[in-house]
């Protein structure tokens, strides 16, 4: 392994990324309050360990929609990954296959969904931004089906493209922003659109971008297999709550009728364990994934996942649990954060504390 900590991965990522690409990967929207809240929410939870429980064998494997996963982590969809390295989405798919986890391919990343699918056997998920009407959907979803994607994630927190001010100050926009055809379909998205997609697609569907139990309930009534709690990494609605803060309400509303996924600020094994203890089935990593890709493509992403897995193992062992199903809210306590929350605050040894 080239990297032993994610500190090193982030430092290398910063060295490798052009300023504008870094702004895109590391930034949030407007005042970046929602982005910071994700970390703040995680830092507002403490762990309560049990002792003398024989943790010589720790099993941190899980399943996502019935598919086996080496750990309760998946690679969240990210658009414009090709900015980091030309074949970044391919590296993500390769890492998922090699490591044994699930990845979600963003409808906005390159290479194409066919190219990604051609050499890959593991289950993977396609994430869609709705940018067209019936014909567009039939064409795209036909291609997704033909290429054996296991599920479809529909992003619903992007009705409007947010103001990402790091990019705006630099006078730069990612390709997904500049070629923003069909934006009106994202704005017009409603439950009829969802039903139409469901009818065309026919397979398991993930509702991505939920933060209110009312919407989780509607999602279930409309056949969602997964409620995916997300504020888009704090990159869409500014001043949104942290995702971990809303997770308990969503879990309560879903009440076992679907799986609950979450993302937003997850950087550490302890972060993942907190979400699992609160009832999430799996945790998506976005920024961390992007940092790893920027640090060194496939091999750095493999290192990053190995580090995260190791952290999960350590957290479970020290908590006194030997499998994920033993985790519940009794292992958690409310706490006050002890550092200023930002996108890198889980890594206190970065030079200057934060790389911009």
């Amino acid at each position, binding site marked *: 392994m080239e990297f032993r900590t994610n500190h090193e991965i982030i430092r290398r990522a910063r060295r490798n990324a052009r300023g504008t690409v870094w702004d895109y990967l590391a930034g949030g929207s*407007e*005042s*970046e*309050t929602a982005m*910071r*809240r994700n*970390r*703040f929410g995680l830092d*507002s939870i403490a762990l309560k360990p049990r002792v003398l429980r024989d943790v010589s064998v720790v099993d941190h494997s899980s399943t996502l929609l019935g598919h086996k996963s080496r750990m309760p982590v998946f690679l969240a969809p990210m658009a414009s990954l090709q900015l980091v390295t030309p074949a970044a989405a391919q590296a993500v798919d390769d890492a998922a296959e090699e490591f044994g986890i699930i990845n979600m391919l963003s409808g906005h990343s390159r290479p194409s969904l066919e190219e990604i699918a051609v050499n890959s056997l593991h289950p993977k998920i396609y994430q869609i931004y709705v940018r067209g009407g019936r014909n567009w959907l039939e064409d795209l979803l036909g291609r997704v089906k033909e290429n054996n994607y296991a599920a479809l994630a529909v992003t*619903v*927190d992007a*009705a*409007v*493209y*947010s*103001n990402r*001010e*790091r990019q*705006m*100050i630099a*006078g730069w926009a990612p390709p997904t922003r500049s070629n923003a055809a069909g934006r*009106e379909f994202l*704005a*017009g*998205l*409603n*439950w009829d*659109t*969802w039903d139409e997609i469901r009818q065309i697609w026919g397979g398991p569907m993930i*509702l991505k*971008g*939920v*933060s*209110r139990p*009312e*919407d989780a309930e*509607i999602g279930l009534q409309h056949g969602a297999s997964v409620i995916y709690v997300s504020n888009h990494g704090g990159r*869409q*609605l*500014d*001043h*949104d*709550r942290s995702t971990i*803060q809303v997770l308990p309400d969503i879990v309560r509303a879903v009440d076992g009728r679907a799986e609950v996924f979450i993302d937003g600020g997850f950087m550490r094994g302890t972060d993942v364990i907190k979400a699992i203890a609160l009832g999430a089935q799996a945790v998506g990593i976005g920024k961390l994934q992007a940092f790893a890709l920027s640090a060194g493509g496939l091999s750095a992403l493999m290192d990053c996942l190995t580090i995260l897995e190791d952290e999960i193992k350590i957290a479970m062992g020290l908590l006194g649990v030997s499998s994920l199903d033993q985790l519940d809210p009794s292992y958690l306590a409310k706490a006050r954060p002890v550092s*200023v*929350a930002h996108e890198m605050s889980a890594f206190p040894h970065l030079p200057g504390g934060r790389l911009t």
Partner: protein
Amino acid sequence: MSDAIFETTHDMIMMARRNLDQDNWDYICGAAESETSLRRNRMALDCLAFRPRICRDVSEINTQTDFFGHKLRIPVLLAPMGGIERWSVNGGLDVDDAAENFGSVNFLSTVCQPSLEEVAANSPHPKSFQIYVRGDDNWIRELVRRVVKANYSAVTLTVDSAFYGNRERLNPAQLALRRVPAREWQKKITWDTVKLIQDEIGDRPLILKGIMTAEDAALAVEHGVNGIYISNHGGRQLDHVLGNIQMLPEVVTAVGGKAEIFIDGGFTRGTDIIKAIALGAKAVGIGRLQAYALGAGGAEGLIRCLELLEREINTTMGLLGITSLEQIGSECVTEAMPVTMPHEHSSFPHLPGGRVG
């Protein structure tokens, strides 16, 4: 869209800083004593978070509201500010031009140049005149008659300035400039002053600016006041009051729909404005933000600033899943912990050094 002289409010603030001398910068940015009130304004806004809804078709978003029946393009008012002519060459006329051009309502301060008649003659849109009392009852009557004659749509009386707050950033020369003996009259303002003004203005709405308690809001309603303007003067008067938006719920309850509620103090983002609307304000005043915009580019700068705010309001509404301001209620927001140290620039995290002094 006006010519894009800046793309973000970050850029606007930096442009203003480059254009303005230290005296003006200190006057605009600063507040009273420890500047705790100023910081509390931001802190209180940062203690609220949104609860967005999804799949609600937000293709058409309407950001309009009204100010006593006059259309407002966004729920934003240009708060009264004294001495604008010191950093924007045409003073109150620049603000008036921006309001006319964009579709907002401006408040002309008693201590802003040029004269109220000149500003009134500058444009046809509705505006409000803001009164500082600088003389006896006859002086007030005389002033209000001029305001009525010039056909201002509303009259605003500032009630939080019995004393001048200690603005400790200001140097002795700047302080001397603001040491006006006639300010003593401010100390004598009572509910009788309110009555006296009401007798002169007829049907025109009267707004009391600087109310910070439910008790005074209720008294104002009893006295037939039409607009309750929650304000701590941008933290520039009494230090250590609460953040303005904290006062909204109790004032809304006390007013019980019998008057319109306005608010200012620390509002710099579309998200801030939507929070105030969610908690029952009719519209939000911008002061410092207005001053930066004028410093960055005069009337053009202010129009651009309003366009950026409009864009942020649109984004916030769309991502909240709402298409008109009436749909926003208190269920859209909830309490949260702040994630940054609050100060006058803390909603702009990419400023060099984080804060521009």
